[in-house]
């Protein structure tokens, strides 16, 4: 595709619900990143995939967060038993290498009530 797409754009969840956020990256971009952006802050790294391999998940804040990219293209970020502090914008980005530009999707704004 021409760009990175994410769905849903907005998600409201009740505390304790599970949510799944989808990222559809640019075709051919082997690297995929998830970031979390709290209100008024810069994005913070969550996890990184190269093709289907999750090479770095050091930024995931707890074991309630889980990400997968089974076929090396679409990725899903899952948050189990959501808490209010999970409310944020979740951004997905794709790139080719460390010097290549990361192209971001529009994000999913998650609000946990």
């Amino acid at each position: 595709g021409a760009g990175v797409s994410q769905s849903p754009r907005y998600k409201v969840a009740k505390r304790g619900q599970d949510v799944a956020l989808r990222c559809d990256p640019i075709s051919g971009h082997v690297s995929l990143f998830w970031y979390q952006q709290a209100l008024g802050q810069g994005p913070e790294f969550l996890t990184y995939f190269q093709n289907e391999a999750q090479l770095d998940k050091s930024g995931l804040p707890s074991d309630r967060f889980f990400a997968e990219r089974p076929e090396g293209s679409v990725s899903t970020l899952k948050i189990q038993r959501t808490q209010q502090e999970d409310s944020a914008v979740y951004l997905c980005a794709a790139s080719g290498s460390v010097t290549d530009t990361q192209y971001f999707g529009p994000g999913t704004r998650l609000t946990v009530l």
Partner: protein
Amino acid sequence: AQSVAQPEDQVNVAEGNPLTVKCTYSVSGNPYLFWYVQYPNRGLQFLLKYITGDNLVKGSYGFEAEFNKSQTSFHLKKPSALVSDSALYFCARPHGNNRLAFGKGNQVVVIP
């Protein structure tokens, strides 16, 4: 240690005046540097990057940035600001496995 720092919270500038958004970087690691812009309820849009070569980098929407090794800075500039340039600007740098480490962001307000 923070990879990049954006010392100002908000930058106010009159339309038509030069715009500068400041970014400094820590000396350790490679000096690859990026600028992104974020409009309300939108994802980050790439503006420009410095990898190597010319210190003056030209990017999208008339923006440019100068890599200054002696001052460890990579300030974003635009000669004549537009009201539509009002947005949140982020400086960033690769850290570890390609992931980007972002500054806190600068809110730019262009006053008509």
